[in-house]
């Protein structure tokens, strides 16, 4: 199962790279969302996959009975999802502001910080 997921992750990364290389910032944001998901899945799959055994301890027991899913990557991914949301929201707001100020979504035309000026001697 891990193998199939690995292939899917590769596909996700491929599509997100392609989207992030687009000159349209909106597509870049889509790529950002996809690559966040891919990164979370990589961490998750790195801890191996176990079906039907969440990392909970039954009441009265001292430790989980038998093998349960790996809790550590789950904890890491959980916070990563929330942070990824923060990043996405910030990027979206930034893009929106850029659009309302510059009137374009094409990154090649956003030249305020690095203008295409000619060198003066």
């Amino acid at each position, binding site marked *: 199962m891990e193998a199939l997921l690995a292939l899917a992750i*590769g596909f996700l990364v*491929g599509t997100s790279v392609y989207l992030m290389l687009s000159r349209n910032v909106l597509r870049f944001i889509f790529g950002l969302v996809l690559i966040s998901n891919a990164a979370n899945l990589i961490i998750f799959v790195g801890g191996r996959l176990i079906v039907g055994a969440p990392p909970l301890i039954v009441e009265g027991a001292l430790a989980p009975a038998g093998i349960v899913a790996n809790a550590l990557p789950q904890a890491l991914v959980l916070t990563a*999802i929330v942070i990824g949301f923060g990043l996405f929201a910030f990027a979206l707001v930034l893009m929106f502001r850029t659009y309302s100020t510059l009137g374009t979504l094409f990154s090649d035309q956003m030249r305020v910080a690095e203008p295409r000026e000619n060198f003066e001697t």
Partner: protein
Amino acid sequence: MDQQERTEDRSALIIGILPVLMSSVLFLWFLGFVPQIAEGLVIRSEFGWVPSLGISFSFVLDGLSLTFALLISGIGSLVFLYSNTYLSRHAHFSRFVMFLFAFMLSMLGLVLADNLILLFIFWELTTITSYLLIGFGHETANGRRSALQALFVTGAGALAMLAGFILLGLTIGSFELSEILDQSDKIQSSGAYELILLLILAGTFTKSAQFPFHFWLPNAMAAPTPVSSFLHSATMVKAGVYLMARLHPGFAGTELWLWTLTIFGAVTAVLASILAIRQTDLKLALAYTTLMALGTLTLFLGQESGYAMTAFATFLIVHSLYKASLFLVVGCIDHTTGTRDADVLGGLGRYMPITTVAAALAAMSMAGFPPFLGFIGKELKYAGALGVASEPVLVAGAVLAANALMFTVAGIVAFRPFWQNRKASLPRSPREAPWQMVIGPLILAVLGTAFGLYPDVLERSLVAPTVASLLGSIEDTKKLTLWAGVNLPLILSLLTVITGLLLYWQHQFLRAQLSDILAQLPSFDRGWDHFLGALKLVAFWQTRLIQPGLLHHYLFATFATVWAGLTLAILYGGIDFRFPNMAKISLQGAAVILLVVGGAAVTTVTTSRITAMAALGVVGIGVAMIFIVFSAPDVAITQLLVETLVVVLVAVALLRLPRLDVERSRSRIYDAALAVGVGTLVSFIVLAVVSQPFDRRVTDYFETVSWPEAFGRNIVNVILVDFRALDTFGEVVVVAVAALSAYALLRVTAQSKQKR
């Protein structure tokens, strides 16, 4: 005068008087050391600073540093007094005083420092204060250019010098000069000697404006005249000479030392004297004679004989006295008449009697007439030059030429403006300058005369101890005397006077000829502009190469680097890859994964915003389902909630944005190729990771202690809030910062828009 102006005047008075008092006190304090130092004592004091690196606040007072300290503090106090009148009306007078005082303290630190690193720090402080002082008139383009040029030239040299210092310190194993200089055998036999010497000379030659770095010094005359007199004649430019003298005991005696210093010193001296004749601006003419003096001093430091060292020590003092005096005289002339042009000035003797006396005394010393100290200095110079064992004729010839030309310049600067008839009318009618301005040059000029009449005093108090610092004992000091009998130096002196008189008689003609010749030759100053221009072009070109300002370029470079780096690491590092077992695939899992892949594919190809949004939602839900299937309820809940919020956010923002375009650019093929490459590589790496045996030790630990020690049965939550709580704290900080930044971005710009 209204109230405010009066208080400003009073504060200017205090600001002006304080440094005069402080530097006078310093001067008297140093003067108190003269008897001890004259007896051959060397005073050292040390405080630790960075002991692990061998850096300390260590200071040494011997003949050489005492001579410099007296010159710095003595001329300093006169220059401060002078500036009080010269610049008191200037809007930035207090700034000027602060810069100048900071310079004086750094310069004192430089000549007293015994630690190489400490010396370097003071050295750079003088560079910076000099930059600020040259650029004091920063309103003019010329002032800015000159300041920057001086900073670049001396700063670049200082960096080379620092490298030399560090090499030297590592070779000897100490940064203390007093320890290093005792081991001249070890220095000169080490393999790095040539490199160390050349690096340090790069610093001293740039600082003391030796050929071919001489061009910055005349430009530095953009500074106010007191600065030129103090920094660019009497003290700072002599820092390079000082360092060469300081290192003399450890470094001198090799062919490399001898010839580098002799040749560069001689070339600088002769070239500068010729260029000095050409100038009509009195200040510039003096600047070139300063170059000539620096060249002569360097030339003598190349030698090791007692005559050369005595000549060095004497000429060092002589030059500082008469040159500072003459600069201040020029400042007086400029201040009262409004011009410094030698062709315009004339007949000032009647209106400015005291200035005239000061100028005459200083100029006689400069020209080398008896009974002035300059005469003794000149005799010693000839004796020293003739003492050069290998090439006495060449060196003596260079000194003769320089001296004769200096005689001529002395006439141009200090004779013509006062005695010759005026040819043109002056911008302002001449009158005597205020006493604060006249007293400085007068004292300096009178000192030059007094020492000439009583050379024994100077010899015992300063010259002999300085020679002792250079050669190790005062035995080698030659007698300072006005009359040494008829000998070769005296004959050469007569020759100097005759040549100088001839040159002075014909100097107008010579000047015209020189201007014609020099116009044909390449100028170092213009070369500097070309150099800077080329530097800027290269910088521009490489900035544009690396930073074209296109997001696409940056991202493409980033992903390509990631791809290439990982591929290389795998190719050379090797990877343990086993082809995975595809048998254990559940239908449920495969369906969910297909959902994710499908969503990603649709997002990539669609040109509809709504479709893209929906497809992204599908990916998000699919990922959440993967978490559910593989036993991660907490993560799945979080993912679903975040997915809901993303939809809300996107719904708010997305529909106000323009439609997606259809991409038909040719370069998208390369993007697609790179995307396929990165995707394949990631798949490969994840496959390799999951085919490895798994180490559950960390997880086992969390599972066993979660309930007994942390009293929680949800292991994921226990990790978040207990075991790794500090990480979680960091993460919520990030969330809060992201939210606040987005909020600020929206609110602040919206407000500024409303205002408009």
